[in-house]
């Protein structure tokens, strides 16, 4: 089986967020770009399926400025992916989800996969649009928020669970298909040191910016325009409730929730 994993570079969780000079986006200065947490789960899923089905190959695909995309692709290679494709972002390229989906679909037409895996969303824009958009572009079925993905090894396809409102849905899909994974349910592995060293020297296929730009062009007119990127006013810290007895603390809190915060049920 051929598996493709879509991986996105996102700012490291410890990044101190600040708006750029125009106040339109995150200031990329000094940001460390890492494999998105949800995508780590997707890579882990691909590797679990590969280990269960010898002969499976896993290709990681990423879109973005070359340095960022290739950094996360090397992370994916260090974890155990077999090949990597980098879609070079054109200068001033749109970063909206549908345009990015078109770029990823371009790579998937060059490297058709029977299973496309991705995170259900990325930890930066938390859009969750790219995966389903790729599925729609390629005419694939898609399942989101998936956990416990299993392949029976035959053409019958994949079984999986997905957490939706009110419960857990057990589903099955024939291949090819796209599956967007819930984060961290499968305890993603850590890359081993020798594999990190090897991944630094591994080849990465690069699809040039001009070709990527052409693939993205159809959604130029619908791309959202950025108007602002803001940090919420800093929380000034809790208003601490002074009390002499626990009962007094409880009564004061109930009164505040009812009269001041107006959230008492």
């Amino acid at each position: 089986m051929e598996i493709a994993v879509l991986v996105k570079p996102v700012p490291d969780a410890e990044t101190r967020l600040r708006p750029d000079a125009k106040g339109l986006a995150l200031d990329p200065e000094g940001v460390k770009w890492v494999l998105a947490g949800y995508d780590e789960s997707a890579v882990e899923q691909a590797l679990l399926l590969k280990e269960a089905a010898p002969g499976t190959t896993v290709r990681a695909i990423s879109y973005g400025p070359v340095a960022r995309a290739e950094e996360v692709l090397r992370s994916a290679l260090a974890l155990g992916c077999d090949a990597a494709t980098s879609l070079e972002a054109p200068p001033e390229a749109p970063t909206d989800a549908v345009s990015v989906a078109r770029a990823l679909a371009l790579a998937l037409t060059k490297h058709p996969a029977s299973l496309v895996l991705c995170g259900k969303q990325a930890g930066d824009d938390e859009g969750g649009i790219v995966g389903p958009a790729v599925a729609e572009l390629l005419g694939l079925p898609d399942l989101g928020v998936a956990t416990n993905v299993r392949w029976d090894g035959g053409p019958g396809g994949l079984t999986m669970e997905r957490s939706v409102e009110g419960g857990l849905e057990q589903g099955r899909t024939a291949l090819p298909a796209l599956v967007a994974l819930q984060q961290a349910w499968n305890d993603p592995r850590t890359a081993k040191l020798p594999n990190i060293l090897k991944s630094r020297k591994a080849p990465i296929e690069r699809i040039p910016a001009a070709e990527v730009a052409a693939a993205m062009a159809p959604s130029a007119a619908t791309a959202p325009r950025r108007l602002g990127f803001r940090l919420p006013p800093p929380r000034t810290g809790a208003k601490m409730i002074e009390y002499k007895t626990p009962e007094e603390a409880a009564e004061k809190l109930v009164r505040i929730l009812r009269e001041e915060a107006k959230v008492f049920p």
Partner: protein
Amino acid sequence: MTGVLVLLERHAGAIAAASCEAVGVARSIANGGPVVGLLVGPGGAAGATGLGVDRVLLAESPNLDHPSGAQLAVLLAAAADAASSTTIVVPGTARGRDLVGRVAVRWNASAATNVTEVATSGSGALRVTRPVFGGRATEELELPGPRQVLALKPHAFSPPATSPAPTPVEPLALPEGLAKAPALDVRGFQPTVGGKGPELGDASIVVSGGRGVGTPEKFQVVEDLAEAFGAAVGASRAVTDAGWRPASYQVGQTGKAVSPQLYIAVGISGAIQHIVGMVSSRVIVAINSDPQAPIFRVADYGIAGDLFAIVPALTQAVRAARSH
């Protein structure tokens, strides 16, 4: 005049709160244009009356018991065209969010998910605000016209007042593309376990416990408080990692992100891992023995002290207040 189409999701026969919120938003951006609901699958038009939509389109077919994202995208695009809608609003549920990317491609629309504010701007565009980076920042986007598709963040909007007027229901002619759209083969459904109260992601009040609770047995004090509030129970990663409660309880970066009206953190120190999963809650209350715990920096109200004295007292006070 622009019309807005709303996907009405039903859980266990009733229209979900998230869909009602979507109707309210649709009304606010329709500028007097029609707000049309789309109902899919078995169950007829049950629950459609009183929602505040002008009419309902009903897509019925035996193979739409568990419609796939691809099928719903086909239906949404067809219904929007049939109703001359220029905007589609879907509820911020797991299923709803998954549709946005598909509809954006199929219907050639501008798209945004997790929307917390929306307003019309000139020439058919919409301005939306949405939290990013786990609520640590917000971005504002302009979605150009003529077509947009939005998914809302749960609990970000109030549902409109219900209206007793009967809602006309019309069948939606099933579009040709439906047969070609990949179907979903759902083999089973397990309602969420353990929850006597509401579901974590859906609840308007969440009470969570952390390592400070001490032992799996003592976690009961958290559950008692949740029950008094009619709240969902959550937990920090320390609790689920230690196996005190199942992983489905976990609130945080690697668990569920919640944004209820009221979030009460009991014995949770406030690791960033946890904070990003709850910081966008409207009101946060922290109860912790360590007055220096970082949770007090993100909380609106804090009580420093022994949680085993305070939480039971609070449970009593809440029960008493609610019984009046």
